């Protein structure tokens, strides 16, 4: 690990005042950043410890939703009474991720900003445009079993590994931030992460030094909520494909549908065409097949990840059956 300066921030304002300078990074749980620093994939010159900031509570909002502090640990969020009752898809997504120990440390903000698990990103001897812009992409033409099949570019085919973020995408969460100049921003989760394009090293719309302070959920949605995760072992493994689904059926027809996908793209993936293929229709395999066609119309495999396309199709159909049974 490269050495660094360390400072503990006493307030969010102090953290952002300090956070924008070259080579500076916030550290919350540290479970992703330190992993990458040990391998010198990340080499910050300065760490600002935000772990003691007063951002660790979950509170009701005036709008009837929930405001989640950026430092709420994943374990506490999954177990929170209101989350369990009104946003079970979020509890389920969190519980499907990592291990008990990691969830005790991993924070809400850090989880959103965790970086890809692409093997070549982790291997500093490989070409990787995300780690070393302009060096190429070893995953294209390499072993790419865990990579993306939607929204890829010729520069990067990595996926975003978070389970939590997929549930938050389906729930239409908003990320609330504090900028160095003291301004607050509200960013829809759908707009928060970027596709790789020509700049795969820029993963979100955050500006340097911008601090996530909260994630807000709108009031509990109507309908049933399900998180389904398909992975190589039964526990403690990242998703190959995952789906957060919220579907309401009224009078024998699908009244509303929100579906977000993990493991398929550089960001939690939502596609209005998938939801449009469902709303107004009678639940059943005919409608589900049309939705799967819409999701995967532009899907492209890179060899070892070709299997994800039929896997995503089957997982979507199984999830929709469960949601409408």
């Amino acid at each position, binding site marked *: 690990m490269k050495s660094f300066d360390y400072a503990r921030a006493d307030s969010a304002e102090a953290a952002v005042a300090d956070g924008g300078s070259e080579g500076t990074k916030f550290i919350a749980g540290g479970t992703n950043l*330190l992993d990458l620093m040990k391998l010198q994939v990340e080499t910050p010159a300065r760490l600002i410890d935000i772990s003691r900031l007063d951002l660790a509570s979950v509170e009701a909002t005036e709008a009837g939703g929930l405001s989640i502090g950026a430092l709420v640990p994943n374990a506490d969020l999954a177990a929170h009474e209101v989350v369990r009752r009104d946003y079970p898809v979020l509890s389920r997504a969190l*519980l499907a991720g990592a291990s*008990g*120990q990691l969830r*005790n440390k991993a924070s809400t903000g850090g989880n959103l900003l965790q970086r890809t698990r692409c093997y070549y990103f982790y291997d500093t001897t490989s070409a990787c445009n995300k780690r070393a812009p302009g060096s190429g992409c070893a995953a294209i033409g390499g072993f790419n079993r865990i990579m993306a099949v939607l929204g890829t570019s010729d520069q990067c085919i990595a996926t975003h590994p978070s389970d939590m973020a997929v549930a938050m995408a389906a729930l239409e969460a908003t990320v609330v931030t504090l900028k160095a100049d003291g301004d607050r921003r509200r960013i829809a989760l759908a707009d928060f992460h970027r596709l790789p394009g020509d700049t795969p090293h820029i993963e979100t719309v955050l500006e340097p030094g911008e601090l996530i302070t909260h994630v807000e959920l709108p009031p509990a949605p109507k309908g049933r909520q399900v998180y389904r995760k398909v992975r190589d072992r*039964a526990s*403690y493994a990242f998703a190959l494909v995952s789906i957060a689904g919220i579907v309401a059926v009224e009078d024998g027809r699908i009244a509303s549908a929100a579906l977000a996908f993990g493991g398929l793209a550089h960001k939690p993936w939502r596609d209005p065409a998938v939801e449009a293929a469902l709303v107004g229709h009678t639940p059943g395999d005919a409608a589900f097949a049309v939705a799967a066609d819409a999701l995967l119309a532009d899907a492209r495999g890179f060899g070892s990840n070709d299997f994800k396309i039929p896997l995503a199709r089957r997982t979507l159909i199984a999830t929709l059956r469960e949601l409408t049974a």
Partner: protein
Amino acid sequence: MHFTINGQSFDVEPDIRTSLLDLLREHVGLTGTKKGCDHGQCGACTVLVNGRRINSCLTLAVMHQDDEVTTIEGLGTPDDLHPLQAAFVRHDGFQCGYCTPGQICSAVGMLDEAAKGWPSHVSESLDDGALTDEEIRERMSGNLCRCSAYPNIVDAIREVADGARDERRVGEEAAA
């Protein structure tokens, strides 16, 4: 820097990069906590910080100066074993023993989480905290055992969990 580990105070000046795990092993001589992967993938380094189980390899020592750290050495001694330590011995919950300190610290944290009613990935309902074998396996999935002593580890944990539950029931009946 100042640390509180197993109720004892330590003043040491490690390099700023020192993980909590390396602090324990290399700077204060508590080598019970083990290093397996050093990347959060095996659980050998599990300790309790303010009563919660975490991977000590993925956190910086400097970030834990105001915390109470408990390691395997703080749970029990050879003459006075913690109930989980005794149960691991009784059930042969190990072969080489390398993962064992992490398994036991993790199990202490896990039983506390279950007692608070926290659900897991395999819980049928998010309100159900019953600790079946399937639940124990899922909740302990962050601790790998290269010797694959898993069946006996589950037996040891179940015995302690059942004992604690029976004690709670007796307590509640006495209170009622």
